[in-house]
């Protein structure tokens, strides 16, 4: 097609890799793949991810039927994969809204290319994260007891409990993220309504576009709301992951009761989330041929963010070890020694390699420009961050105050199901999303192209 955006790496504009990106070219480039047949690779990817969905459903049914004893948890290591999954997924879920809102407030124009799918990533990841504590409850039928409602038992939730904070944080954050995402989606849904030829498409996109006409007054109202929501979104995201950090920090266990946990969890969330954005951005860029919209410059700046975050993570780890030693408590010192040399030490060294050592390669511009290298580092960071979360759980619980209670976690096949299957479920949801909704915000891109003088 002649009027689809022609990528050209030599183009001078920093954030649009083309000599010309008119309104119609951007519209075409983003919407054309949605109206064409999905193509071989999309179907293969969907068929590969579908069995994982079935696997997740089977695992959920089995845990609900048999109880959480099917996992490797025991009376000492009472938390396991579900809790680590919860922290990991909500970390990824935090990044989408955080990235989008923070870049909007700091007027980083390059957010136009990545905000939409990063926010979709948030929705799916938070939905998966919210599932995990319910699975872990053991008695999921009573999950609704977390909510205050008039009941015949005259009971109230225990507001001092971290589990109750989690409940409100997840619910508020998920609903907020849906609104934040939807508000910026309305104009693009109108574009889809006006371009699609199928009757169903016109009805559905038309209904969800709410009759958007592109009126200047509506644009103004939308911008005011979106900016205000972004300003609220940043503290909300930070508070949500801080509350996740408080699940640990509000306890009395060695290695957990540390004041650094809330901020360190927030940085960790941004870190793993940005790494996931790299993976998804590469997939979308390649799958939809959006090389002109998601440019190498984007990957370069994301590489810098990852590098900075990895340094902060390394600093946080070092602070934990230092405080363990400096505090002088036997249990804390013993825990640090256990981390480096105990049962889970190989995983701990792998975590340090993935999160702190490997990302240092991003100091080199050549590495930031190499998409293959960036992809490999992003995957390593995601693995490293999962290891971090599971080790926070395992190390402390396996090595608490009472040596007679020291036990290790025995990883079962059902633990493995809860590590792998949600990834397939996430991929499945994301594949459906990119076929139904423009994965790149078109109106933001049009505005960007006009500012860059390439429209």
């Amino acid at each position: 097609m002649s009027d689809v955006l022609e990528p050209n790496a030599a183009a001078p504009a920093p954030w649009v890799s083309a000599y010309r990106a008119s309104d119609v070219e951007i519209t075409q480039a983003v919407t054309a793949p949605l109206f064409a047949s999905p193509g071989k690779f999309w179907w293969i990817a969907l068929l590969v991810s579908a069995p994982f969905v079935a696997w997740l459903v089977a695992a959920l049914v089995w845990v609900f039927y048999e109880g959480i004893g099917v996992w490797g948890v025991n009376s000492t290591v009472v938390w396991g994969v579900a809790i680590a999954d919860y922290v990991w997924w909500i970390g990824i879920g935090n990044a989408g809204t955080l990235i989008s809102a923070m870049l909007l407030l700091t007027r980083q124009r390059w957010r136009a290319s990545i905000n939409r799918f990063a926010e979709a990533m948030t929705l799916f990841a938070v939905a998966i994260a919210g599932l995990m504590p319910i699975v872990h409850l053991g008695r999921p039928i009573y999950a609704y007891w977390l909510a205050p409602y008039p009941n015949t038992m005259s009971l109230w939730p225990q507001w001092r409990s971290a589990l109750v904070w989690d409940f409100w944080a997840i619910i508020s954050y998920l609903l907020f993220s849906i609104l934040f995402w939807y508000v910026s989606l309305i104009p693009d849904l109108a574009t889809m309504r006006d371009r699609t030829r199928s009757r169903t498409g016109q009805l559905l996109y038309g209904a969800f576009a709410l009759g958007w006409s592109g009126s200047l007054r509506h644009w103004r109202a939308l911008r005011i709301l979106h900016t205000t929501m972004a300003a609220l979104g940043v503290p909300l995201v930070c508070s949500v992951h801080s509350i996740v950090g408080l699940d640990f920090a509000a306890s009395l266990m060695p290695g957990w009761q540390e004041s650094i946990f809330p901020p360190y969890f927030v940085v960790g969330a941004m870190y793993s989330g940005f790494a996931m954005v790299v993976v998804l951005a590469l997939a979308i860029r390649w799958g939809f041929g959006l090389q002109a919209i998601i440019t190498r410059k984007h990957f370069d700046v994301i590489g810098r963010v990852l590098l900075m975050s990895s340094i902060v993570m390394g600093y946080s780890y070092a602070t934990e070890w230092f405080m363990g030693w400096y505090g002088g408590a036997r249990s804390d010192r013993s825990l640090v020694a256990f981390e480096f040399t105990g049962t889970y030490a190989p995983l701990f060294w792998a975590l340090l390699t993935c999160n702190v050592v490997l990302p240092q390669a991003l100091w080199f511009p050549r590495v930031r420009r190499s998409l293959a290298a960036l992809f490999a580092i992003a995957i390593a960071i995601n693995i490293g961050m999962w290891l971090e979360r599971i080790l926070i759980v395992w190390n402390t619980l396996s090595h608490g105050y009472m040596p007679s209670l020291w036990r290790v976690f025995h990883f079962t096949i059902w633990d493995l199901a809860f590590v792998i299957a949600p990834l397939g479920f996430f991929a499945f949801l994301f594949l459906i999303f990119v076929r139904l909704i423009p994965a790149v915000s078109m109106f933001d891109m049009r505005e960007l192209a006009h500012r860059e003088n390439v429209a």
Partner: protein
Amino acid sequence: MSGPLLAEFPDAATLIGAARSLKVRSDCGLLDAFAPFPVEDLEQLIPARRSATPVTMLLAGFSTAVFAFALQWYSAVVDYPINSGGRPLNSWPVFLLVPFEVGIFAAALAGFIALLWSTGLPKLHNPLFDIPGFERASQDHYFLLARGESDETTLELRHLLRTAGATRVTEVRAP
């Protein structure tokens, strides 16, 4: 009396030029503009009242937060007091977490409702949608909606829009 005129422009710069030339005339009213992205220069040409959305959000957020705190206080101090490790019944520092979370969500929800209220959306049918070519307002074309005071000024207005670079000028009749 004839209805307002909808003029179609191929790009934003021409539209802004036309809007500026309309602005100086007192007998023509600039009603609205339609664009596929928020055009900053246009916002100054069509003034609007101060948006009530942020204040609505502030009030909704704070009142929900106060309600959430009051609920916790009532349940923990009055209706169901539990001595949890000797902590005071009114453990206000941790009671701030839930109000913060739900307050922000309530503010966002109120903002969304305020958006719908102020824009009149959802309004699935708009008389403008019947005008051929208007579907490109969401893609790559720019539109101005203007009204003349009388039939003569409307004719003049049509001519003015044409000379300013409009590719098509259509009269909008109420449905």
